[in-house]
């Protein structure tokens, strides 16, 4: 009996590292990332080869396949830059220039991030306010809801310049117009989510509050608001990502002074694809971090609300 269990404990060493990695999220994420990098390299060669061959021909130069492949990844203005070019550019513009420099991605990121966060804050507040009104006042539900929905059918690219121009005319420039565009985009998921969330309490729970003769206000704080928390956080994750989109779009018509949107625009003016891709990756990274941040906040709040671990 004892020798049996001893031999068992010796022979069984637990699942291999490979199996454990693939069972969690690390393995799959790495696989997808590798596939992405491979596809990217193939696309770089395929897209940049024609211009590179053209260049060889004009210089009257002989070339080999190996040389072509290596040269497609080192063009100054490629159609599609290689990952290491983007990485180099990002390293250069994030770590080697002062963060107050106009060439620093940190500076541009901060410009965009600040209006993103301001817009997100205002949008969340507005979204919750509208939801509370819609849930409590029938007239508001009937009059506001169609407007809330149709507001999102207008392409933001069309309306963003109008907002910037109109607000510019009344003296509002810089941060605020961009934040307002973010607000315009991100109040919507918050309103929709919160209307659903504030209405999520059961009939039986609402009846319970009625037996206590609770006021609307008391029912709101004791029942509706806490019930709506999971809905709120789901909405906030969407809202913060599109808030960033709003801020970037808001930077396009301002004449490309500062911000990630300005970097994108300037890059496209001068064919600086490497610059465009660095700005895009920076934006994606910021969006990812913000969604992650909201997720962390959600976990902490729901834990405090006694959610099952």
């Amino acid at each position, binding site marked *: 009996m004892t020798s049996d269990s001893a031999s068992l404990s010796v022979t069984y060493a637990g699942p291999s590292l490979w199996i454990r990695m693939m069972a969690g999220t690390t393995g799959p994420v790495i696989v997808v990332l590798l596939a992405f990098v491979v596809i990217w390299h193939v696309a770089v060669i395929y897209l940049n080869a024609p211009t590179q061959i053209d260049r060889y021909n004009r210089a009257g130069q002989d070339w080999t396949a190996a040389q072509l492949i290596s040269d497609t990844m080192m063009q100054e203005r490629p159609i599609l830059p290689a990952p290491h070019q983007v990485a180099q550019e990002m390293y250069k513009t994030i770590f080697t220039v002062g963060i107050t420099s106009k060439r620093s991605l940190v500076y541009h990121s901060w410009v965009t991030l600040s209006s993103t966060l301001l817009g997100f804050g205002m949008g969340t507040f507005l979204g919750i306010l509208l939801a509370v009104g819609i849930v409590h006042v029938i007239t508001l539900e009937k009059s506001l809801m169609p407007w809330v929905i149709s507001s999102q059918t207008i392409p933001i690219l069309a309306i963003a310049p109008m907002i910037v121009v109109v607000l510019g005319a009344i003296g509002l420039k810089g941060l605020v117009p961009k934040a307002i565009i973010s607000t315009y985009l991100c109040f919507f998921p918050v309103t929709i989510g919160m209307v659903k969330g504030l209405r999520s309490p059961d009939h039986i729970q609402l*009846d319970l509050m009625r*037996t*206590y003769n609770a006021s609307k206000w008391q029912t709101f704080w004791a029942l509706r608001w806490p019930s709506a928390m999971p809905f709120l956080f789901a909405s906030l994750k969407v809202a913060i990502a599109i808030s960033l989109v709003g801020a970037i779009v808001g930077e396009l018509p301002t004449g490309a002074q500062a911000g990630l949107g300005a970097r994108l625009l300037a890059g496209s003016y001068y064919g600086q694809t490497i610059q465009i891709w660095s700005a895009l990756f920076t934006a994606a990274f910021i969006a990812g971090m913000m969604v992650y941040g909201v997720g962390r906040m959600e976990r902490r709040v729901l834990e405090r609300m*006694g959610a099952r671990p």
Partner: protein
Amino acid sequence: MTLKAVVNNVAQMPVSKDAVVDIQKLTLTFQTADGPVYALSDVDLTINRGEFVSFIGPSGCGKTTLLRVIADLEKATSGDVSINGVSASEARQNRAYGYVFQAPALLPWRTIERNVTLPLEIMEMTKAERVKRAHDALKLVELNGFEKKFPWQLSGGMQQRASIARALSFDADLLLMDEPFGALDEIVRDHLNEQLLKLWARTNKTVAFVTHSIPEAVYLSSKIVVMSPRPGRIIDVIETRFPKDRTLDIRESPEFLEIAHRVREGLRAGHSYDE
């Protein structure tokens, strides 16, 4: 004891001065897309202080609706409902009753203690008072020690006990219970019935209890109201004379079986099988 001694038809008895619930000619009709539904028709009922009244009948007989009318959760179409001498709506505003629903309806983000203090918060009691009352109420349902647990950490029976503690916490004299043990298994149910009886004996509250279990109704009640469906009406009112400190053993006594038989007869008479 003969059947006559144990059982009294009290429908004709004069209305006591100590009536907690007094219902006269109550009718309730729901207007639905398929036409009117006659939920309750011509209901007269008096519940006196300290009574344990069970409402029994098949589903759709309006027993839950009747309880909800008493609680002012439904409005009567016609007739009078008075609770402690005032209207049902006024009684609700005075927090005259504690209501226990079919499901525990605990708020999942509150601990058991804070679920029990919920009505007390709404009544704006001080924190010290709330904690003290929650402690007392949880002791009554034998849940002390579970104050800091969240609802999902408790079994279904314990959750329902917590919801009873919540209904008891603000010490209303009237307890309205809508099939509180309907979703629980037989053994847990027996145990909770015993506890409920002890609680009733100790606190001298008036209890209105909806059930569709005949043994439960007979075991618990001092008065059994038998109802029939379409339209919901009272077809028999049976008074039992078991002592307040009865035990589960009485269920084998001939008196118990006689009353159960009479309830069953009433239910059978009121139910039309020719549909």
